[in-house]
């Protein structure tokens, strides 16, 4: 097995599909709402702002871990490309195609 530079960048870009992006966005907002609200409420009830800061900070780490990496469940709806209908070119004809460099 060999890796090209493109494979490495692709791996670290961590792309997810369109449905996955929607899912990640909704998870982000749900978790952030939860942690912001609970940090305020817990701090208010216990009358200690350290609780608020701790809960909000924990929430940030949790959300970052949940939404940042390209997990499998963000990549369940990969785009399927249609098969090529009329295969005009055979292997022979493709080999005849000459790619001209662009003239400046």
């Amino acid at each position, binding site marked *: 097995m060999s890796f090209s530079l493109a494979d490495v960048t692709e791996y670290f*870009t961590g792309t997810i599909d369109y449905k996955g992006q929607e899912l990640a966005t909704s998870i982000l907002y749900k978790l952030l*709402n939860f942690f912001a609200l609970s940090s*305020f409420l817990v701090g208010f009830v216990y009358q200690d702002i350290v609780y608020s800061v701790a809960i909000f900070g924990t929430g940030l780490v949790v959300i970052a871990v949940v939404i940042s990496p390209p997990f499998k469940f963000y990549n369940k709806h990969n785009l399927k490309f249609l098969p090529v209908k009329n295969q005009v070119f055979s292997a022979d004809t493709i080999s005849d195609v000459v790619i001209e460099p662009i003239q400046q």
Partner: protein
Amino acid sequence: MFSITQRFQTLSNTALTYAIYVAVAVVATFYYQLYFDGASSVPATVDNISIKSHFKSSRSFGSMNKKPKENTKLTFDIDADLSPLFNWNTKQVFVYLTAEYPGKNSQASNKVTYWDKIVTSKEDANLELKNQRSKYNVWDVEKTFRGREAVVRLEWNIQPHIGPLVWGSTVSNATIVYPDSKVGGK
């Protein structure tokens, strides 16, 4: 939300916005709790005040060209419970004892600080001081205090974790009359 960096940036931007919302809510409840606990009308007793007056000729005591300058010190009792000033957003409270007296013309007013203390927790907020001596030597712009009457107040300044500083004064009824000293103590 396409790549890791995009998701991370969206998270940090949105989290910053939410942190501002939480901070605004904290400051709002902080003000409400101060109002609810009656922070602006905390009763305080400042009594048994005695004034000591000295004439100093040193530059470190406000004297210019060795001309005598009247320095005053106070000894006083304080009984005040500052716990209404403490809630979840209070970091510390700066308490200070001021004397306010009229200046040369009728509009002008002078305010000087004799003593201060930093209270960092609600447990220490009950001030019961007997024969407390003032921290600072206080002198006037003029040579002496000319026997004027001063209103003594115990004022406070809340330094919160989030939000602006809050100033206020306890409600007390204390006045002092400075001795009508002659220059040089004669």
